[in-house]
């Protein structure tokens, strides 16, 4: 029995670097999805305020025209 070779677990151990890189890649992918959600929200907010500004300009122009035509 002493002569037999015993397979040791460390010879077939996982690659730490590989696991760290895969973990980082997954983390960045998930974070990237969140960033896309954030950019989409920002785009919707900007579009809302742009629409609001256009509404105000149109309303002001409409009121000016109404006042002018009343005269």
């Amino acid at each position, binding site marked *: 029995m002493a002569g037999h070779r015993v397979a040791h677990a460390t010879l077939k151990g996982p690659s730490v670097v590989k696991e760290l890189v895969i973990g980082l890649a*997954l983390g960045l992918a998930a974070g990237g999805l*969140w960033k896309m959600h954030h950019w989409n929200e920002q785009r919707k907010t900007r579009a809302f305020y742009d629409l609001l500004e256009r509404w105000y300009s149109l309303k002001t122009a409409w009121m000016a025209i109404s006042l002018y035509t009343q005269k």
Partner: protein
Amino acid sequence: MIVLKWLFLTISPCDAAEPWQLGSQDAATPIMQGIIDLHHDIFFFLILILVFVLWILVRALWHFHYKENAIPQRIVHGTTIEILRTIFPSLISMFIAIPSFALLYSMDEVVVDPAITIKAIGHQWYRTYEYSDYNSSDEQSLTFDSYMIPEEDLELGQSRLLEVDNRVVVPAKTHLRIIVTSADVPHSWAVPSSGVKCDAVPGRLNQISILVQREGVYYGQCSEICGTNHAFTPIVVEAVPRKDYGSRVSNQLIPQTGEA
């Protein structure tokens, strides 16, 4: 015009607490927009670290399960990994700190010449608002009290525990200064959609500057325990067009000041 109006009818901003709400209310001021953006910045790092740590944990459990790996390793140190796991968290902390401090100091910026100053005074258990900009010499300020509308007096469509009889009317797109204080115990004047929470401390005047970017009605609640009716002293801010502000304020206050 009609198309624009129709488009707006399909957009309903969230300016009050909603049942089962998970995220923030929609921003009505640049400060609140900054707070939301900062939250999104930090949440990116939170997700990155969460997924990374979960992956490493699961893989460690997978690789070193006692049935797969009967003989445990005896690793006592690893210089490279120790350097990396010190530097990366420091970098992440720095990336979080930069936008955080930028927002913090911009929130502290005091607007030198606000258009309107409103005083919000906390009482047990109602609010008093004073508009003192329109005084001349010894005239009394325009003052009114704001009480919660009880549940039995609510109309259809109104929110429970959030509506008040007299709202704070402010002009939209105008720099405002709100001075917050209390007449009895500490209260707190909070309006989440405006990104405002300011403690009302008796004997102290706290000042906040806000700029409401869009017209609407914004709801908040007392945020400092002040007694038995702490949950029943809401705040309602109504932002109106600048040209309507004067008439709205005078109409609101005529019943009170008419007797004076």
